[in-house]
C-alpha cells in the first residue's frame, strides 16, 4: 500500500483564553481555559484524492485544515506528509514542505495583497524558493495564468487586485497556489464568496487542475452539495471532532450519525414537490470551551440515550470504509 499524502493523527489545537498579562494577574489562581477548536482529529488523504471536511461554522474545520499543514502550530497529535513526520520540521525542511502544500482562501478580496500586481503575486513563490531564471519564471507565470483561465495572461499580468472581479481574483489565488507544482492543496471554502454564476466554473477549474497536476486536496466547506461535487470522501466535524467519515456517496445517501443526518437533510433541493421537514435538531453549537465526558452531540441529539453521557464513543465501522462516532452502531 502506498503512503497517504497527508495523515493526521489525533490532531489537537487549543487556543488559550485570557492569556494576556492583565488577566493573568487578575485571575492568577484560576485555571487556564482553552477553546478546543480541534480536539483529536484523525484522517488520511491519499495521493490525488479529494477529501472534504464539513460542519457548522465554528466546528473547527478551518483550524483543522490549517493546523494540518502547520499554518497553525498543533497543540498535540501527529502529522505525516508523504510518510514524513511534519510536527517537528523547522527551518529549511519546513520551507521545502511549503513548496508541496498550498492553500486557497475563502475571500479573494482579502487573500491577495493589494500592493502586488498579478504578476508579482504569482511569481513570488518562485522567488521565495529560488526556482528558475528570470525568463523561466516569466514563462512559468504566464503559462500558469493561462492554465487557470486568465486569458490572455499579458492582459492580467500588470493588473492589481483592485481592478479584478471576485472570480478573477480567485483564479489569481489559484495560479499562485499551483505555480510551484505542489502535490497537496488546501481549499478553505473556495467558492463561498463567489457569485453563483461563476462558482461552477471555478470548481471545474479545481477539478481539472487536480487531475492534470495529480493533486491531493482537502476541501473545507459548510456546503455539502459543493463537497459532494468535489470530493471522493467526506468527514463531518462537530465541535472539534470528526463524527463521521466515509465515501461521498455513502455520507450523502446513507448518513449514519444523527448529526450527519440533520446536516444532509438541511441541504436545499431543487424540487418543489419534495416537502422538506424542518431541521431535526434544535439549539446551537455549544460554547467551545465546554467540557463533557460523554458524546459532544448528546445535548442536541434527537436519539440521545443515557449511555451517551457515559463516555466519548469511539468510531464504529458501519460499512466498508465508513466510520461513525455513535453508540447506535456499536456492533
Amino acid at each position, binding site marked *: 500500500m502506498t503512503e497517504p499524502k497527508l495523515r493526521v493523527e489525533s490532531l489537537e489545537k487549543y487556543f488559550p483564553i485570557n492569556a494576556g498579562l492583565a488577566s493573568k494577574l487578575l485571575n492568577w489562581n484560576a485555571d487556564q481555559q482553552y477553546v478546543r477548536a480541534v480536539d483529536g482529529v484523525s484522517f488520511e488523504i491519499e495521493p490525488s484524492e479529494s477529501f472534504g471536511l464539513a460542519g457548522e461554522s465554528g466546528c473547527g474545520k478551518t483550524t483543522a485544515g490549517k493546523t494540518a499543514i502547520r499554518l497553525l502550530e498543533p497543540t498535540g497529535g501527529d502529522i505525516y506528509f508523504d510518510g514524513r513526520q511534519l510536527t517537528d520540521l523547522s527551518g529549511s525542511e519546513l520551507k521545502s514542505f511549503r513548496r508541496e502544500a498550498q492553500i486557497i482562501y475563502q475571500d479573494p478580496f482579502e487573500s491577495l495583497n*493589494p500592493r502586488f500586481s498579478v504578476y508579482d503575486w504569482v511569481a513570488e513563490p518562485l522567488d521565495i524558493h529560488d526556482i528558475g531564471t528570470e525568463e523561466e519564471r516569466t*514563462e512559468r507565470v504566464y503559462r500558469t495564468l493561462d492554465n487557470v483561465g486568465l486569458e490572455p495572461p499579458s492582459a492580467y499580468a500588470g493588473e492589481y487586485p483592485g481592478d479584478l472581479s471576485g472570480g478573477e481574483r480567485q483564479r489569481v489565488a489559484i495560479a499562485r497556489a499551483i505555480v510551484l507544482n505542489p502535490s497537496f492543496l488546501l481549499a478553505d471554502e473556495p467558492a463561498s464568496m463567489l457569485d453563483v454564476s461563476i462558482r461552477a466554473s471555478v470548481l471545474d477549474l479545481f477539478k481539472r487542475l487536480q487531475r492534470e497536476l495529480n493533486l491531493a486536496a482537502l476541501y473545507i466547506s459548510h456546503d455539502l452539495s459543493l463537497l459532494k461535487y468535489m470530493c471522493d470522501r467526506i468527514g463531518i466535524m462537530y465541535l472539534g471532532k470528526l463524527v463521521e467519515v466515509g465515501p461521498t456517496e455513502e455520507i450523502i445517501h446513507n448518513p449514519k450519525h444523527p448529526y450527519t443526518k440533520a446536516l444532509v437533510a438541511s441541504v436545499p433541493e431543487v424540487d418543489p414537490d419534495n416537502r422538506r421537514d424542518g431541521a431535526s435538531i434544535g439549539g446551537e453549537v455549544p460554547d467551545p470551551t465546554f467540557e463533557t465526558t460523554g458524546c459532544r452531540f448528546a445535548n442536541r441529539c434527537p436519539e440521545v440515550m443515557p449511555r451517551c453521557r457515559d463516555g466519548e464513543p469511539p468510531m464504529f465501522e458501519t460499512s466498508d470504509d465508513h466510520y461513525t462516532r455513535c453508540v447506535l452502531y456499536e456492533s
Partner: protein
Amino acid sequence: MSTQNRTSTEDEYDILSQHYGGRSRLRQTLAAQREIFRGERLGQIGLLLLAIFLFVGLFAPLLAPYDAQEKLRTDDGEIKRMEAPSTEHLLGTTRLGRDVLSQVLIGTRIALIVGSLGAFMSVFIGTNMGLISGYFGGWTDDILMRLTDIIYGVPFLPFVIVLVVILGPSLLNVILAIALVQWRSTARVIRSQVLTIKERPYIEAARAAGGSDVRVLYTHILPNVLPLVFLYGAFSVGWAVIAEASVSFLGFGDPLSVSWGKMLFTAYTANAIRTAWWWVIPPGLSINLLVISVFLIGRTYEKVSNPELRERE
C-alpha cells in the same frame, strides 16, 4: 499558423517580463503620488513651497548676495550695524554687520538638512520598531513598547541639552537628539497598523508560500503601511525644523553654522527682537512656511489613511 501564434505569444512574454520586473512598482508608486495630490489645492501649495525651499537650499551660495558670516563694512571701514533694509541690503544687517538675506538663504540648508535627516532617521527607527513589535508580538512587543513608553516620558529640550553637553554642540548631535526622541510616535502608529494587517489572509498566504519573517515584514506588510510612514515622515520634518530652531534659539546649536533658530537667538541676545524687525521676521517666517509646507503635504497624505478627510465622491 499555430507556430507563428506561439512565437508571437513568447515575444509578448519577453516584452512583458521586462515591463513587470520591478521597475513597474516605482512607476506605480509615482503614479499613486500624483493621484493623491490631484485636486488637493493645499497639498499642491505645500509641494510648491517645499520646491522653492529646496531650490533655495540647493543654490543658496549662488543666490546669497554676501557671505553670510562676513562682517560688512562701509567704504570708510565702519561696520554696518543694524541697518534697515535698503537696496544694498534687501533685508538689512545684523548687529555684527552681517547681511540678513544671505543668512536666511544659507539657513535654508540647515533647516532642510535637519528636517530631512531628522525625519528620515526618526521614521526609519520608528517604522522598524513598529513593524517588529507589531509583527512578532509577545515579549518583543512588550520590551519595545515599554521602551517607547519611556521615550514618551523624555522631555525633549532637557534631553538635547544633556546630550549636547556630553557629545558637544554640533548639527549632527542635534539631529541625533531629534531622531532619538521623535521615533516614538511613528513606532506606536505603525505598530497598531501592523496589528491589523498581519491578520489579513494575504499575510498568511505569504507564509504559506514559505516566505520568511523578513520577507513577510518588508515586502508584504511594509508596502501596506507606507502611506502612514510618509505621513509621519512629513510631520517629522516640520517637527525637526522646529526642534532645531528651538535648540539653536536656546544657544545649544552648532556654533559655526547659520540657522534660522540661531538667527533668532543672536537677535534675542543682541536685544534686537523688538527693534530690528528685518532681523526677526525673515527667519521666523521661513520656519513657519517650511513647517506649513510639510504639514500641508502630510495632511494630503493623511487623506489616504484617514477616510474622514477624503472628499466624498
